């Protein structure tokens, strides 16, 4: 974080509360920020502004009118007169925010617990009293500018948190055992050269056995269960040779201990589990974090639906609880929550719907009553009511879900590289060990000498370094991408990305920016004047206009007529910003896209046209992909005349337009049969099936819910560059993984002859195993250094 990002409260051109740029001359960008600032000062928490560090990638701390989410159904009554509620926090910038939220909550009476988890960006509230207090408590935080979205703790508390704890416990036990066994073993090894008595050595071996047996049984469980599970299904993975190695070596050492032999390998077995568990724990941790961040992105977007009861009253409820046939009110600028048909627009006439996130169609459409609308569409016109359709009907969503299932099944199972290696590796190792035993036995050595040498082969070849070769690199790559806002959700996606040779893009919302952009051709002064009206509205077009104009102070006395426009009375008439009809402009020439009109007394009316715009870096990113040898194609559901100019601007010669979800899947199947390994990048519901059919898939975090759930990778931000970043990191990771495997297996090739010949003693085995694992881990860290 640069020093420039630290904002003192006095900076004139930035809002003293939210830190956003704004017009000169005021302290706050909006009344909400002023109120929040005063509230914080009144509580004596003004230090917050000195110590916070504004994170520009996080939603600014600007209070917005609450959307009236019904909290009650998320509140869990604990029985003893207390209630708990878990919320996701949007707008958490840094540690100071945690301090601010907890300090504000500390003033609330009857609150037992109000604790922010900064890692998961969640807040847990526990208070004495009824569920109805939730709204008041949440209001205390929301008026500061944070957005809180409740979630069902039971539904989100996945099995993965429990797995993580089990792995950590196993790691602790393995660490304890490995450390103590090594301590004792060093005594034994020193004693071998200094004439330690048999009784003392026997005692040391027995102590080792007492520590090792329960520890290995417990810490090895994650590997044993996984190995047993794949063996039952007639397959194999890396856990099979690990389990066999650890179990055989432990059993062997126990037999040696009972016989009063010289050599035992308990320390090697425990150290092996310790190293492997470190890899497992880290692997689980980074993957979990990425998946949880992706869940959070979706969760923060989930909104309620306003149901119109028979008596006309409005009631908010969750999307899942909307009964078929219910009348749902969709406000201006709101997203449609459920599939259904338009009942009646409030102002009569037609509803203006932007369905770009659903169908890929870039231009909003005027829909008459009775027309179908899909969840995810945006209402650009006046509020309207709709009738929710029954789930399971032939809706677009159901159709896409069916296509996604079919595509996922036909794609086939991807076998991870580590498992492919294990398939070849395990038999070679076990045959070599068996051959060693037979050879020594046939040559006339005693059965125990033969067995000791066979055990040495198993220890030396125990695939510690091989098993670390893949996960260590993946942990570093996944963590690095996570910090860049690229969330890897699938465990095998890094390997799949490395093999990609073709990238297929969707147009609307993927190559182009989500939403519409203001067309150029307006003088800055006019734009600024219009923006002073536009900032007062939440309408998507008005917001786009205000954003294009830059910081603007709202003019006073603005009246908004929902679905029509904004007006302000000035001497000599009214300034108006809004629809063609609202501003009194004739119907000719017919509009060729979404527009806003701006009329002022005594001046000619101005037209603001809106159209989709290519992402800032799209042309450069695509040129970069082509330069690195990737074929690039554009598959769009939009009309050819809308696709052609965008394809030309982006530099994609190979494009197809007017494709349905089925067509897109068919196109990808064709590419796959032609031997192409395709990365599909898309955001719309209509891209979902294509994403599932591709070898790997990515979607921006603005994508529809279904699409994000299907995608292997979700990336945040306004740029398309994360596609190239993910591909290049995957390529480099793949190279390092292969180097690691060569290192690990090469080491085995050198050491195995020594083991077969019987030169490997326990201390040599321990040294060799640790050094090879260390070499693999150090090599993996080169990924971080070069990126």
């Amino acid at each position, binding site marked *: 974080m640069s020093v420039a990002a630290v904002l003192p409260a006095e900076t004139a051109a930035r809002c003293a509360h939210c830190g956003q740029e704004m017009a000169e001359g005021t302290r706050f960008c909006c009344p909400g920020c002023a109120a929040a600032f005063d509230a914080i000062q009144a509580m004596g928490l003004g230090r917050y502004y000195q110590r916070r560090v504004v994170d520009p990638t996080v939603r600014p701390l600007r209070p917005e009118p609450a959307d009236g989410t019904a909290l009650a159904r998320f509140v869990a009554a604990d029985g003893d007169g207390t209630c708990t509620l878990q919320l996701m926090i949007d707008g958490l910038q840094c*540690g100071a925010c945690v301090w601010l939220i*907890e300090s504000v909550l500390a003033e609330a009476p009857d609150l037992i617990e109000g604790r922010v*988890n900064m890692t998961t960006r969640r807040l847990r509230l526990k208070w004495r009293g009824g569920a109805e207090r939730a709204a008041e408590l949440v209001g205390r935080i929301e008026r500061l500018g944070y957005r809180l979205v409740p979630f069902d703790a039971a539904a989100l508390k996945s099995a993965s948190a429990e797995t993580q*704890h089990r792995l950590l416990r196993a790691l602790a036990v393995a660490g*304890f055992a490995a450390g103590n066994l090594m301590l*004792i073993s060093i005594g034994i090894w020193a004693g071998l050269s200094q004439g330690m008595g048999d009784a003392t050595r026997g*005692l040391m071996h027995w102590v080792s056995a007492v520590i090792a047996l329960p520890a290995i049984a417990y810490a090895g469980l994650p590997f044993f269960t996984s190995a047993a599970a794949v063996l039952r299904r007639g397959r194999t993975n890396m856990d099979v040779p690990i389990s066999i190695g650890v179990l055989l070596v432990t059993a062997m050492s126990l037999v040696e201990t009972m016989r009063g032999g010289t050599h035992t390998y308990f320390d090697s077995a425990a150290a092996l589990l310790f190293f492997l568990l470190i890899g497992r724990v880290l692997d689980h941790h980074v993957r979990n974090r990425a998946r949880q961040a992706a869940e959070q992105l979706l969760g923060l977007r989930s909104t309620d639906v306003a149901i119109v009861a028979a008596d006309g009253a409005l009631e908010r409820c969750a999307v899942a609880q909307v009964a078929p046939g219910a009348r749902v009110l969709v406000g201006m600028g709101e997203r449609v929550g459920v599939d259904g048909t338009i009942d009646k627009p409030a102002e009569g006439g037609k509803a203006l719907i932007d369905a770009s996130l659903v169908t890929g169609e870039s231009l909003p459409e005027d829909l008459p009553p009775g027309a179908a609308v899909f969840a995810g569409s945006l209402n650009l016109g006046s509020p309207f009511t709709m009738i929710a359709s029954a789930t399971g009907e032939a809706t677009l969503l159901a159709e896409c879900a069916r296509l996604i299932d079919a595509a996922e099944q036909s794609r086939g199972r991807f076998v991870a590289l580590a498992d492919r290696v294990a398939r070849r590796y395990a038999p070679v190792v076990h045959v070599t060990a068996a051959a060693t035993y037979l050879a020594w036995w046939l040559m006339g050595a005693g059965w125990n000498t033969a067995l000791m040498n066979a055990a040495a082969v198993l220890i030396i070849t125990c695939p510690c370094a091989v098993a670390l070769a893949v996960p260590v690199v993946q942990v570093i790559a996944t963590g690095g991408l996570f910090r860049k806002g690229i969330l890897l959700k699938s465990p095998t996606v890094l390997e799949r990305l490395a093999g990609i040779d073709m990238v297929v893009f969707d147009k609307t919302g993927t190559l182009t920016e989500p939403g519409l952009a203001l067309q150029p051709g307006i003088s800055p002064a006019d734009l600024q004047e219009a923006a002073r009206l536009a900032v007062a509205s939440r309408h998507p077009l008005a917001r786009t206009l205000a954003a294009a104009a830059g910081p603007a102070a709202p003019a006073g006395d603005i009246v908004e007529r929902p679905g029509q426009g904004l007006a302000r009375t000035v001497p000599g008439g009214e300034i108006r910003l809004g629809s063609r009809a609202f501003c009194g402009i004739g119907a000719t020439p017919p509009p060729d896209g979404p527009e806003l009109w701006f009329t002022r007394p005594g001046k000619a009316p101005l037209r603001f046209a809106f159209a989709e715009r290519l992402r800032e870096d799209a042309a450069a990113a695509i040129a970069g992909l082509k330069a690195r040898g990737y074929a690039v194609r554009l598959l769009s559901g939009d009309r050819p005349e809308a696709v052609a100019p965008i394809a030309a601007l982006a530099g994609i010669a190979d494009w197809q337009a007017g494709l349905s979800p089925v067509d897109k899947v068919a196109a990808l199947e064709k590419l796959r049969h032609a031997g192409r390994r395709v990365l599909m990048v898309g955001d719309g519901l209509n891209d979902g099936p294509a994403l599932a059919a591709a070898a790997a898939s990515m979607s921006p975090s603005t994508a529809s819910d279904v699409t994000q759930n299907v995608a292997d990778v979700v990336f945040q931000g306004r740029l398309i560059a994360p596609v190239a970043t993910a591909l290049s990191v995957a390529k480099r990771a793949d190279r390092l993984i292969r180097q690691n495997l060569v290192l690990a297996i090469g080491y085995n090739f050198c050491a195995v002859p020594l083991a077969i010949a019987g030169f490997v003693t326990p201390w040599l085995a321990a040294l060799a195993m640790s050094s090879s694992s260390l070499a693999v881990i150090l090599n993996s860290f080169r990924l971080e250094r070069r990126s």
Partner: protein
Amino acid sequence: MIVILYLLAISLALGAGGLVLFLWALRHGQFEDMEGAAQRILFDDDGPA
């Protein structure tokens, strides 16, 4: 050499103590929010009275 028995017992007891402490901390959620813990240490002294 009987001293080795004491030494072994003491070293194992110390190690086991550490292990139990770690398992206790894990069970009580001390590792749930590593990022927050790193930040909290900077502001706990001047919280609201």
